[in-house]
């Protein structure tokens, strides 16, 4: 255990393992296709024209780079650390999800796939997938838990406007994990023509690494922009964690800068000491689901538990395998914020900065609000504002007892 780690950025190994986490736990029907995706991804990485094309769309379609913004009023409000937002909520479609979708659809096209499927929780990944499918004229089916269809109605309509078919999932707990099961079932039946765009840094290898690499544009830009703004790197990074894609995207380029404190914020729902939360690292233990070994919320028989969060995008009983590894290695600290704390942060940010954040990054901000005041004024903290809150106004109104 005292072995010193030279780099935190080398994973995964060839079998897709981050330490004991990750891997390829899928049915045989999918296995040849998973290997094919891996091969295509390796080839794409070795081909400069793939990155050129991706950068083109990042710049002209997604609107990258996203700004790094000094949140002056919040900084004054907390009275401590200098708070910066990496503003991925300004991306086309309103969240970081499109970074990954753009990358994966370009790969799907290279592989000659003619149909796209995806799972979605908050609907942000579904919207981003439907968007790139419209852009490249590919038919698209989105699986979404019936519970999420209800609480994310605007995004459901958006997906339909974009031409996607939205399939309501009524198995299990009717939310994100069940949507993922259903998408996998679809994929098993349609391996020949279909590409599955997984929405977070989880699933069988190579997805966790591939999604991370597409999202790492967030952290790379942050490094450059921070050097420009402050002449140095930040002291701490904070991001919310559902499956962990926005977080790993921000964190990964900084993992070997070990002076930088890195913090992931899970959703504590009604509290991590209740049975209504989504904090897999804080409240779970290692297990195998959706193609990888990772921390999971599960009962004493290894049955997966329903997660709970006011934020549909964080309402998942697992977490990407690289986070499980970063947790056990101690490089990243994982904490949690409750529904209530996130709601407060949501309102505070709206009033103080004129930015209505999504409920997901509101969890990150909730944690920032706990620590910022106690940090010195020359401490630079960068938080990933990974999504905007328009999709959440109905949920928030209801939670606040407001009728709209």
């Amino acid at each position, binding site marked *: 255990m005292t072995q010193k780690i030279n780099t935190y950025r080398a994973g995964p190994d060839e*079998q897709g393992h981050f330490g004991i986490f990750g*891997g*390829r*736990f*899928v*049915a*045989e*029907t*999918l*296995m*040849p*296709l998973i290997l094919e995706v891996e091969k295509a991804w390796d080839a794409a990485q070795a081909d400069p024209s793939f990155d050129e094309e991706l950068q083109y769309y990042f710049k002209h379609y997604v609107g990258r780079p996203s700004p790094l913004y000094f949140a002056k009023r919040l900084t004054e409000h907390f009275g401590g650390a200098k708070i910066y937002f990496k503003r991925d909520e300004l991306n086309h479609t309103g969240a970081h999800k499109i970074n990954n979708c753009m990358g994966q659809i370009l790969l799907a096209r290279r592989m000659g796939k003619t149909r796209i499927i995806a799972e979605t929780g908050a609907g942000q990944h579904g919207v981003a997938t439907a968007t790139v499918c419209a852009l490249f004229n590919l038919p698209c089916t989105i699986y979404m838990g019936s519970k999420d269809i209800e609480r994310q109605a605007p995004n459901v309509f958006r997906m339909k406007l974009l031409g996607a078919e939205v399939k309501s999932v009524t*198995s*299990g707990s009717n939310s994100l*994990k*069940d949507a993922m*099961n259903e998408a*996998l*079932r679809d994929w*098993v*039946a*349609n*391996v*020949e023509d279909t590409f599955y765009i997984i929405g977070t840094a989880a699933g069988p290898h190579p997805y966790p690494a591939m999604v991370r690499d597409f999202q790492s544009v967030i952290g790379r830009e942050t490094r450059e922009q921070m050097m420009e703004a402050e002449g140095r790197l930040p002291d701490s990074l904070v991001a919310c964690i559902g499956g962990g894609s926005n977080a790993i995207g921000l964190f990964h380029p900084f993992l070997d800068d070990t002076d930088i404190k890195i913090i992931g914020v899970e959703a504590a729902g009604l509290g991590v000491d209740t049975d209504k939360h989504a904090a897999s690292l804080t409240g779970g233990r*290692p*297990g*195998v*689901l*959706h*193609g990888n*070994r990772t921390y*999971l919320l*599960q009962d*004493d*028989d*290894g*049955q*997966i538990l329903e997660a709970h969060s006011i934020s549909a995008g964080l309402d998942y009983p697992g977490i990407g395998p690289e986070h499980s590894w970063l947790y056990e290695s101690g490089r990243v600290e994982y904490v949690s914020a409750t529904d209530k704390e996130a709601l407060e942060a949501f309102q505070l940010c709206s009033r103080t900065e004129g930015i209505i954040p999504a409920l997901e990054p509101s969890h990150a901000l909730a944690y920032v609000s706990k620590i910022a005041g106690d940090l010195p004024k020359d401490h630079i903290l960068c938080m990933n504002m990974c999504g905007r809150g328009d999709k959440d106004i109905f949920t928030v109104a209801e939670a606040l007892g407001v009728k709209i």
Partner: protein
Amino acid sequence: MSATPDSGRFSRRFAALKAEGRGGLITFITAGDPNYEISKEIVLGLPAAGADVIELGMPFSDPMADGPAIQAASLRALATGMKLGKVLQMVREFRATDDDTPIVLMGYYNPIYNYGVDKFLAEARESGVDGLIIVDLPPEEDVELCLPALKAGLNFIRLATPTTDDHRLPTVLSNTSGFVYYVSVMGITGTTSATGDAVKAAVERLRRHTDLPIGVGFGIKTPENAREVATVADAAVVGSAIVDRIAGGLDGNGKPEAGLVDGVLDYVRELAAGVRGSGDKQ
């Protein structure tokens, strides 16, 4: 490697089928569906109804490769408190009445991983389990459970599928034992079925790579289907269609009605009559 020899039940059973000159019937139900007692009654009745091999599902909350019928069966079992330890208990109770019929446990890895691999394998072997089919453990993950299972004297039965090409087949077959389970369609359990010609071609392809018995499943619903498949393969596997009979024996509130067990076993008898007509094997 100081491997424990396997129970020998598979080789004896498939040799007996060969001697009879017919294909076998492999039946699947989820252990604990709709509850422990009824499920046990069904399992105990299966050999007499004509099942040659019994597949018992270990219920899991997230059965990613299963269709609606088996998903629902899993949830019914879990709702009545079924756990992995009780699946082993059911096998023990079965073995007290039948020492010949091979039993395969089928399911997903997480409950086993959670139980503890070595503990599970030791108890499975001791309770009379002959083999394991774990849907989400491809050869790439053999160190997890396949190799320890073989060492513990349990067969590890692998699924081969239409997407397993000739290049990959040797990998899939490498640590397979007991029999090979050919999944005849791309898709989840209980949906479409393959044509007889496709099954025949697939079995012929597999036979070029292995001498192990070949069971074929997915989408077999009628005694005629079962006969057709058992004629070209060594056994036909029927799952969702049997599970549907269990679901059909529940009242509007999900309570088992009288006659559920008989209804299920009668259907198994029909399937068994089907494979018994597979005598003129080419």
